């Protein structure tokens, strides 16, 4: 299931409802992404981030996320998949994204959750602009995200 929304969500409630009633599920893996309060890779070394605004491409976002979910279901035996991604203004500490996967066994749940986040970061059309003490700036894509996504490409 794909949800693209401005509103916050409750990870606990989402997790509880996620695989409720499905007796085949033996393992659930969840990733939760949050807004950091610093720039770059070293906490405290750069300007403080007050928050960010996430822009997206309505229509294409849902289309790409659905394709990513379909790819995960093709690769692993999954009972449930949930992707929630927020857009709009988000303050430091806010929840941005939730990815959850449910399978009969843990390995498929772990791997598919990792895969979904790696592919989402390089394929879903979202863009972050950070609001810092020094002004606003668009976040640049990272090579390491491309490398993380590439590891899942079939050889």
């Amino acid at each position, binding site marked *: 299931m794909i949800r693209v929304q401005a509103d916050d969500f409750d990870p606990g409630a989402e997790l509880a409802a996620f695989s409720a009633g499905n007796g085949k599920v033996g393992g659930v893996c969840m990733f939760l*992404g949050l807004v950091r309060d610093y720039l770059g890779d070293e906490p405290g070394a750069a300007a403080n981030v007050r928050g960010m605004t*996430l*822009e*997206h*491409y309505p*229509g*294409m976002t849902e*289309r*790409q996320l659905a394709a990513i979910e379909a790819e995960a279901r093709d690769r692993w035996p999954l009972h449930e998949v949930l992707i929630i*991604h927020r857009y709009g203004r988000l303050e430091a500490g806010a929840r*941005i*994204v939730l990815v959850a996967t449910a399978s009969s066994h843990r390995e498929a749940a772990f791997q598919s959750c990792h895969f979904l*986040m790696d592919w*989402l*970061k*390089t*394929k*879903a*059309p*979202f*863009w*972050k*602009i950070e609001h810092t003490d020094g002004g606003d700036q*668009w*976040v*640049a*894509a990272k090579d390491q995200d491309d490398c993380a996504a590439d590891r899942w490409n079939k050889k």
Partner: protein
Amino acid sequence: MNILYFAWLRGTVGQGEERVTPPAGITTVGSLVAWLKTRSDGHALAFADLTVVRVAVNQDYVGWDHPIATGDEIAFFPPVTGG
């Protein structure tokens, strides 16, 4: 056709959306970009370095040699940074 710009491209071009009717001979994304660059200084600047621009036709990622047709929705944006 409908052209969409996202993130910093929108600011550089100066608008998020425009309807255009390119002249005959504009048959690929690449040739469309070359034509769009002639429309304003902002367009020229936005497309000055295509290594930092991605393109989607009808909401699917495509390459610069992808064919285009009347009625297509063509979006230009920087590499994505969600998640």
